[in-house]
């Protein structure tokens, strides 16, 4: 943490900035939970795999949202999506840093030097941005899920995961609010915006199911109180989605257009969208190993 000479200068009455105190620049820890891992809180193999799932979800979504920068409908929305992406990169860094402690790898090793089958994100997060409505539909499903997840994970018996969740939960709360506001406006805006919102919801919804699938890993970790069982988050998630869709006068897809994606991201099986995304994200680090910028 940086320290500044402000307080001492204040005391001596020499502060040249008058009423403005450099104390206002209170820089805080960049990686949530890094203090715990620095003190020897190394992840178990199971916890590392779990943290990698969550970290990959966050990083892949952040990379997608980053693509909106300079392309969003308005400058203000450009900044909003950029802020959300940066929040998610913060979560990803903390989670991948923790995951790496199990195998002596850094967050950058995990972000830049794993190939597609080694990525553990769910399919939802790698689905393309599409038009703005598709991005918002993905944001709604993602943030409604992540908010329930991180809220529950603040109670984790793993202190690093609990610390990361405590930081993330407030940020994801805002992400969900941002998505809900836009769903309401697109659904209640013009005929064209409503039509696009309906299409986007139908295209996105099939990927919700995978988020709530339990497997042996999370069951083991949930028994220890480390992880949250994804299936346990479903009722609260559904309640939020139902409420938003009711207010937006939207319905979940049914009939011919309704299907459930098979998923498989947690096992390293991915849709065709992840490869190009990783290629773009990793190319610089791989072309210049060890470079910093």
């Amino acid at each position, binding site marked *: 943490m940086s320290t500044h000479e402000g307080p001492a200068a204040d005391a001596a009455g020499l502060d040249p900035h008058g009423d403005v105190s450099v104390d*206002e620049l*209170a820089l805080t820890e960049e990686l949530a939970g890094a203090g715990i891992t620095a003190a020897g809180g190394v992840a178990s193999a199971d916890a590392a795999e779990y943290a990698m799932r969550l970290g990959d979800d966050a990083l892949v979504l952040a990379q997608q949202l980053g693509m909106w920068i300079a392309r969003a409908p*308005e*400058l*203000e*929305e450009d*900044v*909003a999506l950029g*802020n959300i992406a940066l929040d998610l990169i913060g979560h990803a860094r903390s989670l991948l840093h923790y995951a790496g402690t199990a195998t002596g790898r850094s967050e950058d090793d995990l972000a830049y030097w794993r190939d597609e089958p080694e990525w553990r994100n769910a399919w939802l997060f790698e689905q393309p941005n599409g038009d703005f409505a598709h991005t918002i539909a993905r944001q709604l499903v993602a943030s409604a899920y992540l908010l329930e997840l991180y809220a529950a994970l603040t109670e984790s018996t793993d202190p690093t995961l609990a610390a990361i969740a405590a930081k993330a939960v407030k940020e994801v709360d*805002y992400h969900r*609010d*941002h998505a809900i*506001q836009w769903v309401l*406006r697109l659904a209640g*805006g*013009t005929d*064209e*915006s409503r039509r696009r919102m309906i299409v986007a919801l139908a295209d996105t919804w099939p990927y919700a199911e995978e988020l709530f699938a339990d497997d042996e890993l999370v069951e083991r970790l949930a028994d220890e109180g480390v992880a949250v069982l994804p299936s346990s988050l479903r009722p609260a998630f559904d309640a939020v989605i139902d409420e938003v869709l009711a207010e937006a006068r939207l319905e979940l897809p049914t009939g011919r257009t309704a299907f459930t994606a098979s998923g498989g991201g947690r096992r390293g099986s991915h849709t065709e969208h992840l490869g190009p995304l990783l290629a773009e994200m990793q190319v610089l680090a791989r072309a210049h190993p060890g470079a910093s910028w």
Partner: protein
Amino acid sequence: MSTPGETGTEAWPLWEVFVRANRGLSHVHVGSLHAPDPDMAVRNARDVYTRRNEGVSIWVVPADAITTSDPDAKGAYFESPAGKNYRHAVYYTKSEGVKHL
């Protein structure tokens, strides 16, 4: 206010943003932004103007709700105080024997 996007060329309306840096301070004008409605204006203000811990409270006001003084009337409006130093407390000398001033 019309619905943004009704015509292809229409922009979102302009809002003036005021941020309060801390408890006990006033909201201070920090700039302006575009947003489709007041709720989104507050959110956009949060995203654009409080990225570095600048505030604890935000006000937004439709820019067209603000009535301004006429920039061409600067003389008529703002030059009158010149020479009226007696309007400043420091103009007066403290009377002897008055305590706690």
